[in-house]
């Protein structure tokens, strides 16, 4: 039956229909919905791992034990899993293994714009690049077959416009899972140098075989049209090409590594102008130029940064300026913001006031860097808040600067890779204040379960790690609780943490109001008492605003948005803000 589903949902469905047995991943936009959908479909085991390295290693175990396995993550997650990947390519697989990675060209929700196709080259593994939901579905099955036929892990790569875009899918026949033998094979799975040397030779030979496969597989197809222009492309770029030049000849690559050299040569020879349309890095172009093939248009006319679209392709081909339809200028920006009544708001109100250096991390709390808070001064990667704060403190000590850095990290990020940083800080006699915002969910990706939330991905009650004993076991002696809704207490706790020498950990255990659907009555502003001093606006809550211009502007609270946390009321020196009696109207 026809369905309209996203690329992520299509991959989940394809996994179940391909006899998939085991799936493990870590949430990360735009990859997250894949495992959520596997869980929702309900017929295959799946789990959230503590991080991407653990997820891929678990999938490797699943494959060795004979079950078709899937590991899912966003592009930067592969950096975490790369240690496993770079040796997995040597061992190969038992049952098929797919590493699904979602890239984010345009950085809609990511800290960088890395192109995962580089990893396929780096790890010398085949990579598939679907161009719509149907292909995403089909390529899971094709991917398992390639993985098993060539004894290799396979990367299935999507981008935001494939992962999140919904299109029509007609599912194929469902294969029942067939779990193979659990084989002991020392030379295959033990990568001691002597075994590894043999395996490296095999990896190079495998790549040549895959290259032959690439020449003939229907995954790479030529659509001959007008021979004036021939375009080599893949993934969502193919759709933009079809939009911009419906009549052009196209070599559409589904298997994007390794490349089919003969097929590319033939195609190039059959058209007048050869054009390469690929998002982000010049991966095809560099390889095709290295084959000695003349490329007329590639990254000389198309951007390395951001997404490709049909207009960019038209402009590159026609060498004309497209008519620019300009947006209205001067409108107030609407950046993402802490939810009304989020506990992070109280914390950052105080950190902003104290003007201390905040070493940040990846999560909702990263928004503390934006105005008017401006209270986060470095954000690098998962876990870096703690390790970078440690390095800062050491250099500050050497420089004779009497300043203690603050690290802010959430529960899921702490489990992912904050624990090792804190262990290292305790071991090396560090000197930072670490604030762990333990809201019992992986918030920014939509509220996923994690080792602290009490449930697994499949909704089964689970061990719930307590952070305070864990932190103490790492060697941190000063551990205290924090209630970020209480501004005075928060300020006092942070000051104490900064004044006490050595590592100091504060843990806020207020749950995510969105994930746990916490509702409180809205705040009301007494217009008689409000002086319009705007002190409350410093909390940066979208429920607050000024009354219409003209008369003396006073603060008003939008009862459709306010969720009654009371942080703003603590900023008011004129007793003008109070909780309203009755039901909450918040349109959350």
């Amino acid at each position: 039956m026809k369905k309209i589903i996203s690329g992520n949902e299509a991959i989940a469905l394809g996994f179940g229909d391909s006899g998939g047995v085991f799936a493990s991943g870590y949430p990360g936009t735009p990859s997250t919905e894949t495992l959520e959908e596997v869980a929702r479909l309900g017929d295959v085991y799946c789990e959230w791992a503590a991080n991407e390295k653990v997820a891929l290693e678990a999938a490797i175990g699943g494959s060795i034990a004979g079950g078709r396995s899937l590991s899912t993550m966003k592009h930067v997650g592969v950096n975490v899993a790369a240690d496993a990947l770079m040796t997995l390519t040597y061992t190969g697989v038992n049952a098929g293994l797919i590493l699904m990675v979602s890239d984010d060209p345009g950085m809609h929700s990511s800290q960088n714009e890395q192109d995962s196709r580089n990893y396929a080259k780096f790890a010398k593994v085949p990579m598939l690049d679907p161009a719509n939901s149907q292909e995403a579905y089909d390529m899971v099955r094709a991917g398992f077959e390639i993985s098993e036929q060539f004894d290799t892990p396979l990367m299935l790569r999507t981008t935001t416009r494939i992962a999140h875009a919904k299109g029509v899918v007609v599912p194929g026949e469902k294969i029942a899972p067939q779990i193979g033998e659990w084989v002991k094979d020392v030379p295959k799975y033990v990568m001691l140098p002597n075994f590894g040397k043999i395996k490296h030779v095999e990896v190079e030979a495998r790549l040549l075989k895959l290259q032959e496969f690439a020449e003939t597989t229907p995954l790479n197809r030529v659509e001959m049209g007008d021979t004036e222009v021939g375009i080599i492309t893949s993934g969502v770029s193919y759709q933009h090409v079809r939009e911009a030049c419906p009549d052009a000849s196209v070599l559409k690559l589904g298997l994007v590594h390794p490349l089919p050299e003969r097929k590319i040569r033939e195609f190039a020879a059959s058209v007048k102008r050869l054009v390469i349309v690929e998002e982000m890095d010049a991966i095809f172009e560099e390889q095709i130029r290295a084959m000695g093939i003349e490329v007329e248009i590639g990254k000389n006319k198309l951007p390395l940064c951001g997404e490709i679209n049909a207009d960019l392709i038209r402009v590159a081909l026609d060498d004309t300026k497209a008519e620019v339809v300009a947006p209205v200028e001067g409108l107030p920006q609407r950046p993402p913001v802490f939810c009304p009544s989020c506990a992070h708001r109280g914390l950052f109100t105080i950190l902003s006031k104290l003007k201390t250096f905040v070493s940040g991390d990846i999560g909702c709390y990263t928004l503390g860097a934006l105005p008017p808070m401006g209270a986060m001064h470095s954000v690098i990667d998962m876990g870096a808040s703690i390790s970078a704060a440690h390095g800062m403190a050491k250099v500050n000590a050497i420089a004779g600067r009497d300043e203690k850095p603050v690290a802010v990290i959430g529960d899921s990020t702490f489990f992912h890779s904050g624990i090792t940083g804190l262990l290292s800080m305790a071991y090396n006699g560090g000197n930072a204040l670490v604030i762990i915002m333990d809201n019992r969910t992986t918030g920014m990706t939509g509220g996923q379960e994690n080792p602290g939330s009490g449930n697994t991905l499949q909704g089964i009650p689970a061990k719930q790690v307590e952070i305070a004993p864990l932190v103490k076991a790492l060697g941190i002696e000063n551990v205290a609780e924090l209630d970020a809704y209480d501004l005075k207490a928060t300020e006092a706790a942070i000051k104490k943490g900064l004044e006490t020498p050595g590592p100091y950990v504060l843990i806020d255990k207020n749950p995510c109001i969105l994930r746990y659907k916490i509702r409180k009555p809205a705040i009301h502003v007494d217009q008689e008492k409000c002086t319009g001093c705007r002190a409350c606006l410093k909390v940066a809550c979208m429920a607050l605003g000024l009354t219409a211009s003209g008369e003396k502007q006073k603060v008003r609270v939008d009862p459709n948005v306010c969720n009654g946390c009371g942080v703003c009321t603590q900023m008011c020196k004129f007793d003008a803000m109070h909780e309203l009696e009755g039901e909450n109207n918040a349109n959350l």
Partner: protein
Amino acid sequence: MQIFNIVIAGVGGQGVLMASKVLAESALASGLDVKQNEVHGMAQRGGSVISFVRIGDQVCSPVVMPGTADLLISFEPLEALRYIHYLKPGGRLVYNKVSINPSTVAAGLAIYPDDVEEQIAAACAAAKGIEALSIAREAGNGKAVNMVMVGTVMKDLPLKEEIITEVVKQISQNKGVEVNMKALAGGAAA
């Protein structure tokens, strides 16, 4: 049929994605090809959200380019203005008149323009503003703004109203069916 491009704009949390789903499912149920796409992920609430729905015999790109939208549905006036350049000449615009402050305005860093609706009217003669929140509340739930908006544009779509109504019925959860039906009808009558 020619491709019909719809842009749906709003603020995170308003139900833009659910409205997009209704239109996409309705297109599928009408035997048409459809692609729907939005960008989400960064934080949960309060950010600007834009979603594309493209309907036709065969749809390639999931992205609507500026200057090509047949219809812009905005759940908030400022967001209507922010994405009004997506409309093609003669394209239609329907927006919810209830404004939501951006965080920049809430923090006193920017001012919500007094003349948003005048600017909308100047840029798009066919623009229509509706009181979606009060219609949704009359239907029984302020959160049904998204269904009110779908109801308002039903007659502008290349889709049959019965099909859209049926899709809304199917995807509404038990208690929500009645509210969503009323919201849809309330929007259609606005």
